[in-house]
């Protein structure tokens, strides 16, 4: 079986508008979780968020888009990361529109970020709107497909916080099975009143800056991001720059509760164990784990226990959600980009705001930047509904 290579990356999050800016922020231990400007919600002043400090109008200008197309913030973030990745991979327009180029988006909010417009149209208080085609989950992929005249397989996946990891798995499988020659994976979610109220109703938003894996963690911070990863088959990459190999992946279900993980972490255990089998490497070959680490009471202790079930000695790990906030449907893709940076630069980035380990597990995430020889990085994404997926990226 030929290898699946990463040949292009693009990303935007609260810690930077492109991959290079985010790389610097990760090295320097910066975070982008702050009070916010661009969100219309009464919680904007009550909770900190991982907000990207560019307004929708500024995005429209940067992207040279047309304001009358009714683009959602979600689509704008996706386009921004997409353009960076395409440039990075040097894909031509012909390659983009070829029937063997797949586009797989992952999002949990899609165009429902346009909640006020949606409400007005749905209740028929506004009978016309430029946003009618912008509300659904598909709107992001549909706009990109139309803009770049893409004729390959197009899909959108929504498995809550593991959406992007599953999009990467789907894209890799399309290539392996000959349904596509290359797959463009785009994870994206924008901060939205809908999700903020959803997570607030579940009482898992922290009014402080999140502290993944800390004994005194008290919830997550929502963030927004988009990351685009281009996958290609080994034999199609002869003259291309290769950033990493997507060498293993696995999807499993915790089958325990709609919005919490089981105490033993069966889902997380199965996804991590399955990814190791898929990559054909023993647990000792993982040098770093980009953990899901949301900062909630439930996730961090369960993920810790699941890691301890798999690894005799848990390798260095950290959650970059302490930098970006939890970017939901984009998390698996943005963290895939950060894992790829671990490999490109042979280094690991510090977990922020950690002071004291969880009593039951005693696990300490990495808290200082350091150079490290890295062959394999594992990246975890666990979602509501028990949807757990783990990916392994390797040095090519």
């Amino acid at each position, binding site marked *: 079986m030929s290898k699946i290579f990463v040949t292009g990356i693009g990303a935007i999050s609260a810690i930077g508008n492109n991959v290079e800016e985010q790389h610097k922020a990760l090295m320097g231990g910066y975070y982008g979780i702050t009070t916010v400007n661009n969100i219309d919600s009464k919680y904007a002043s009550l909770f900190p968020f991982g907000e990207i400090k560019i307004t929708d109008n500024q995005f429209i200008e940067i992207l040279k888009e047309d304001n009358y197309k009714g683009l959602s913030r979600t689509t704008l973030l996706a386009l921004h990361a997409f353009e960076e990745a395409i440039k990075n991979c040097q894909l031509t327009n012909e390659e983009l529109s070829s029937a063997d180029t797949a586009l797989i988006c992952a999002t949990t909010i899609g165009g429902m970020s346009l909640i006020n417009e949606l409400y007005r149209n749905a209740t028929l208080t506004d009978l016309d709107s430029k946003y009618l085609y912008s509300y659904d989950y598909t709107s992001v992929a549909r706009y990109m497909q139309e803009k770049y005249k893409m004729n390959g397989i197009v899909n959108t996946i929504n498995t809550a916080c593991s959406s992007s990891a599953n999009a990467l798995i789907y894209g890799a499988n399309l290539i392996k099975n000959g349904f596509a020659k290359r797959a463009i994976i785009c994870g994206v979610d924008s901060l939205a*009143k809908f999700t903020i109220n959803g997570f607030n109703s579940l009482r898992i938003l922290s009014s402080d800056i999140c502290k993944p894996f800390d004994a005194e963690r008290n919830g997550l911070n929502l963030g927004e991001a988009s990351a685009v990863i281009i996958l290609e088959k080994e034999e199609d990459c002869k003259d291309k720059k290769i950033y990493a190999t997507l060498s293993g992946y696995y999807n499993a279900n915790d089958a325990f509760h709609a919005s919490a993980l089981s105490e033993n972490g069966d889902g997380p255990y199965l996804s991590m164990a399955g990814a190791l089998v898929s990559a054909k490497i023993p647990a000792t070959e993982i040098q770093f784990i980009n953990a899901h680490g949301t900062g909630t009471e439930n996730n961090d202790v369960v993920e810790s226990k699941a890691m301890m079930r798999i690894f005799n000695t848990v390798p260095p790990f950290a959650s970059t959600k302490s930098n970006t906030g939890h970017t939901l449907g984009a998390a698996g893709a943005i963290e895939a980009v950060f894992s790829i940076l671990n490999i490109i630069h042979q280094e690991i980035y510090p977990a922020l705001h950690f002071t004291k380990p969880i009593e039951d597990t005693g696990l300490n995430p990495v808290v200082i930047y350091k150079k490290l020889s890295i062959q394999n990085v594992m990246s975890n994404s666990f979602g509501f509904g028990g949807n757990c997926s783990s990916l392994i990226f390797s040095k090519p």
Partner: protein
Amino acid sequence: MMYIHKTAQISPQETIFHKDADTIKPGVNGKLLAKEPLYPFIPAGILRRMGKSVKMGVGAALTIIEKEELNGIIIGTANGGMNDCMKFLQQIVDYEEGMLSPGNFVQGVPNAIASQIGLLTHNKGYNNTHVHEGLAFENALMDAVMQLAENKNNSYLVGAVDEISDFYHNIEILKGNFNSDNILAKDFYATKQKGAIAGEGAAMFVVNNQQEGAIAKLTGIDTFNNTDPEYLRKRLLDFKTKYQEEAPIDLIISGENGDDRFDNYYSTMETTVGKDIPVVRFKHLCGEYSTAASYSLWLACQLLQNQEVPSHLLKSENHPKQINRILIYNTYFGVQQSIMLLEKGV
């Protein structure tokens, strides 16, 4: 590609075996609502909290997977629990973002269907949810095909579900996709109009690589997004080269939805695939919705099993002599297109 062993569905109709179109439940105010069962397999306490799409998806799935050793659950749904999402949105507005109940938020997420099936059947296997509008179901099918290519002895549940949400239906009407008319099944395709009748439902399938005892074999699938009928012709010809070989097609299942803006795609398809092949239409039974292709696959399995086509399904007097191979073509409002090829099981 893969074999279909069991099927289940919940749709607006109780049966497809009507003598003529007069006894078929018609669309009322532009909607063909699903005829829901009492859901005997779902525990009452859990059933009460479920939205309609979760109920339909879980309810249809549980009738066929009770005794199955499944390795995963793969669902296509364009909107999932859209009605719950809209209720949550209404709460946000009514209570000005006050103390909201999370029930609608949790039930409204599209992966609630696949995850509830996993929860109720203690299935810790592969679990995925595809939401790409008119191709959500086809992507779920491709996912199953690829899982089976890698895991030869596995079995999966694959299916689709979508519901009509009154709120969201208003948006579809504003787009011009749907109209609000009362249309009898016999007039469904004859009344040339803009906009289709909305439908809803769930269709579920158990799939694996075992030929023995299979109802049908999915032998080809292709999806694309392109509004040019000429491009459709090219993809149909490519599809024929890739999957059909020299074997004849006995029956076409066409996704015609009574909206004459899209007749062009269906006539292009018919002339390209073969204009003497009998054509079956089905949306007078289930209405138009993003994952209606799942109903057409269920119908294809029925026809392959029964070797009999009720005349209300046929577009002309042209009856098939035998049904061994069916081509299904569907377009979701001329944007998303899919072709599937199905053969009779042994």
